[in-house]
């Protein structure tokens, strides 16, 4: 690299350049060709996005002639719960994203409430999420109208006893969403601005960890989600997200979620995200807030 960046006088570089332009095989960059940090990170449901919300970008750096993949580990520690997520994703031609994620919610203090109130002995809830996202149109950087994607997240509870006891109707459910994302260049004091809007149809209680449907409402409802971020430079993104939530169970009120995040993307292989998250009231425990940390590798 330094060799090519050496300052040679224009006269000298001309013949050199012509020599270099001999036949060479078409090859792919190791980790995909999309511009740094435009793969988003792995959200808690496995789909590419921010922390809490799926965005229209597809995971990894695969561009229209490439394959790519991601692996991620995330952890949210709020006052009375801990959520751990392991996720993996594949991206074909920056057109289709397929993801899997396993969520484990440690009930920590809720264990006692469940034992006293329901006679249940359970200290964690597990859920698997299978995601599919398709880029419908546009490019997040280059299209004036941004990039638009649609996706589904099929969620399967692995421990339904607790959700069942508190009134959830089903142990599996499928969220459907449409997302639009766009980067506005030099928009905020010369920095690039990322804007994302997502609309989701869902029956999930607390994202599905407390099952699907309930006594207050058992049908699909439309939720608005969104986020904004500012690229401090091409390695640092500072932003916030908001996710509206349904409120299906009379057992406990469900609140909207929001977070403020900072993501560090030193190169295409690694992304580190840290956030302050506020999940509101969760299953009778008030005002759950804390920290979120996520590591993502791309290949």
């Amino acid at each position, binding site marked *: 690299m330094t060799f*090519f960046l050496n300052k040679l006088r224009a006269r000298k570089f001309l013949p050199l350049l012509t020599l270099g*332009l001999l036949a060479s095989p078409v090859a792919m960059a190791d980790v995909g*060709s999309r*511009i740094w940090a435009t793969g988003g990170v792995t959200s808690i449901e496995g789909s590419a996005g921010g922390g809490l919300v799926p965005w229209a970008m597809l995971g990894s750096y695969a561009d229209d002639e490439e394959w790519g993949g991601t692996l991620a580990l995330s952890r949210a520690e709020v006052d009375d719960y801990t959520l751990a997520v392991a996720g993996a994703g594949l991206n074909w031609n920056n057109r289709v994203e397929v993801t899997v994620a396993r969520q484990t919610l440690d009930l920590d203090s809720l264990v006692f409430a469940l034992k006293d109130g329901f006679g249940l002995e359970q200290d964690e809830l597990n859920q698997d999420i299978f995601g599919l996202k398709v880029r419908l149109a546009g490019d997040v950087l280059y299209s004036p109208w941004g990039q638009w994607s649609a996706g589904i997240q099929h969620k399967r509870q692995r421990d339904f006893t607790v959700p069942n006891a508190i009134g959830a109707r089903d142990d599996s459910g499928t969220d459907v969403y449409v997302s639009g994302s766009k980067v506005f260049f030099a*928009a905020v004091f010369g920095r690039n601005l990322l804007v994302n809007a997502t609309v989701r149809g869902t029956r999930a209680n607390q994202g599905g960890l407390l099952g699907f449907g309930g006594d207050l409402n058992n049908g699909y409802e439309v939720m608005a*989600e*969104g*986020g904004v971020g500012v690229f401090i430079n091409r390695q640092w993104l500072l932003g916030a997200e908001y996710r509206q939530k349904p409120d299906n169970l009379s057992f406990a009120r469900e609140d909207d979620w929001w977070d403020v995040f900072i993501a560090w993307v030193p190169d295409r292989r690694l992304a580190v995200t840290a956030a302050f998250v506020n999940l509101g009231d969760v299953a009778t425990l008030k005002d759950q807030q804390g920290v979120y940390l996520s590591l993502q590798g791309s290949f």
Partner: protein
Amino acid sequence: MGLSASKTYIAVLLIFAGLVLSGCQSHPSESDNSLYLQLGERSGIADVVEDLLYLIVADERINHQFKGIDVAQFHRHLTDQLCELSGGPCTYSGRGMREAHSAMGITNTQFNALAENLILAMEANQIPPVAQNRLIKQLLPLYPDIRHL
């Protein structure tokens, strides 16, 4: 329901605050040459384009497209184009972007490869990120022509 409506309102506000912010910034005056100055005038731009050429040659995703071109003319035309787009006193005398790239079938992968090299070339010449962003913003309208969309 009033509560849920106000929640939606907050979400929409959050999203569109960004759009408004970006709108506020996009009215440079007619004779604004501050970007041109930030890029180091024509000689600074010529250095960037020279480094860009080296990166292209080394990049197996795109170098095959450039085989056999008139390098000196390409260097001069691209330098003039970036100079003009950044508000400098140059006149681009090459072909239109659609015409120049029509036969190449440039993919998004190739476009991003070139964009990446341009950013690396600007970084190598200590162009501040803000100026990089402003230049790329000027290049965005060329994307459909270059990709032949």
